[in-house]
């Protein structure tokens, strides 16, 4: 029981980290149809700039805001330069471009911050909480709450607002979106800015738990991507659920089977799931017919 509880808690903690990345992925994907492989790097930049400001003596709140702003600006710059120019090519080329961006940003991170892990004090200073025999890091609870808030806000934004439907229209059919008077280029810029800001928030939130290094983005990025795909690519709640499932799968397979093979088991399960649900667990109707 104790063990089970601990696995659940840990699974949700890890899962919510992936989920924070996953919602960034979905944000860009929902508007532009691009899979942004540099999402993890936005988290890295957010975290490390925040630490830099905090260490320079700025109050933590100011550091956070500045870090988010800077990351968002970088997101915007990336879009305005690399992505915008290639907007009309194929998806796979845009993916390669984001891989290039990821390499570039990671290199910059290494130049600026070096290799040593950097710390950020937890935003709420509390002792670990003991709950039904499981230990919970207060920061995890905080992450979870922020995640739920972001989830609610983004869900309403994409699914329930008029502008949200305009954004989804951009993803499906750019040409027609333009004919509606939607400035798809601005929307794409918006997507990257927003996603970078979300990435930065993710990075800042998880740093008290994981510490920040220039290479922190890769693994959580991959796992966030997995969460998003499992969730069906388009939906914010789906992506969050998908990411939490990945987190739980990892801890449960690690706890009950083996930590050597937990990643392998996780992926095996995911592939099996895709076999039965080829468009993700929470896929919604795409409205394609012949």
């Amino acid at each position: 029981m104790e063990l089970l509880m601990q696995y659940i808690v840990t699974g949700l903690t890890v899962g919510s980290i992936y989920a924070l990345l996953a919602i960034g992925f979905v944000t860009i994907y929902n508007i532009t149809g691009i899979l942004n492989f540099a999402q993890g790097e936005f988290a890295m930049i957010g975290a490390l700039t925040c630490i830099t400001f905090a260490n320079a003596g700025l109050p933590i709140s100011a550091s956070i805001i500045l870090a988010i702003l800077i990351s968002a600006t970088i997101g915007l710059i990336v879009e305005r330069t690399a992505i915008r120019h290639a907007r009309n090519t194929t998806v796979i080329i845009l993916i390669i471009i984001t891989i290039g961006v990821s390499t570039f940003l990671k290199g910059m991170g290494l130049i600026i911050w070096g290799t040593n892990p950097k710390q950020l004090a937890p935003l709420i200073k509390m002792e670990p909480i003991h709950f039904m025999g499981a230990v919970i890091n207060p920061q995890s609870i905080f992450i979870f709450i922020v995640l739920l808030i972001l989830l609610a806000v983004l869900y309403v934004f994409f699914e329930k607002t008029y502008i949200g439907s305009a954004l989804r229209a951009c993803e499906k059919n750019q040409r027609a979106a333009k004919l509606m008077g939607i400035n798809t280029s601005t929307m794409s810029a918006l997507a990257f800015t927003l996603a970078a800001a979300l990435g930065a928030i993710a990075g800042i939130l998880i740093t008290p738990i994981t510490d920040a290094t220039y290479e922190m983005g890769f693994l959580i990025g991959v796992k966030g991507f997995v969460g998003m795909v499992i969730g069906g690519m388009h939906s914010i709640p789906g992506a969050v659920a998908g990411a939490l499932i990945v987190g739980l799968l990892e801890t449960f397979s690690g706890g009950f089977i083996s930590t050597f093979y937990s990643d392998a088991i996780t992926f095996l399960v995911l592939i099996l799931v895709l076999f039965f649900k080829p468009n993700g667990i929470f896929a919604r109707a795409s409205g394609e017919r012949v």
Partner: protein
Amino acid sequence: MLKVDGVSTHIGKIKILHEIYFQVEKGQIVSIIGANGAGKSTLLNTLAGLYRPTSGTITLENEVISGYPANKVVEKGLSLVPEGRQIFTNLTVKENLLLGIFSKYYKEKKLAEENLTKILDMFPGLKKHLKNLGGNLSGGEQQMLAIGRGLMSNPKIILLDEPSMGLAPKIVNEILDTLMIIKEDLGTMVILVEQNVKAALKVCDQAYVIDQGRMIINGTRDEISSNPQVISAYLGIKSAGA
């Protein structure tokens, strides 16, 4: 009024349109006819800003709109119902329709609601699908949706690229009636590209014939209807061997 002044369009390196001149007055329906591949769709797409003309100007009510991107052109009051429907398959029918008035939705929510009702009255077939995804509709229903979406914003000028395509004959007549009504009531300008030449000639004031990217004939409805060249090439005279 819309004035097209010597517009040429290239796609890639190929010149598709060659110095096109014509104009549409307020409250006029203009038909453009021509064989498959003549350049009709390219012309409409150029007017809507999807292609940038390589020479010439397009003026809408004293404002030069050539060179504007499509989304800006829409804001100026030009609306295109594109070839192949181009509806948003992943959005519901209602969302699709409402996006038709994107450029002024927040300013004129009331107009949006009114027009939504009007369009649903015009196409009752869409009513029961309001919450259905656009992509699930039948071909003809999608065509209605596309036309309805184009009309949502009360544009100054609406361009229709083969609106009758895939529609039942009854509906085609209704659409043509609607066009007559909006031109009279709102003074909307209409450019109609149609393969159904007879129908097109029935409602238009002016007609133009386009061939291999060039305007070769123009005139009033009656002139065109009686033009022997048009009769032989476009008005369904049986080809030999039938």
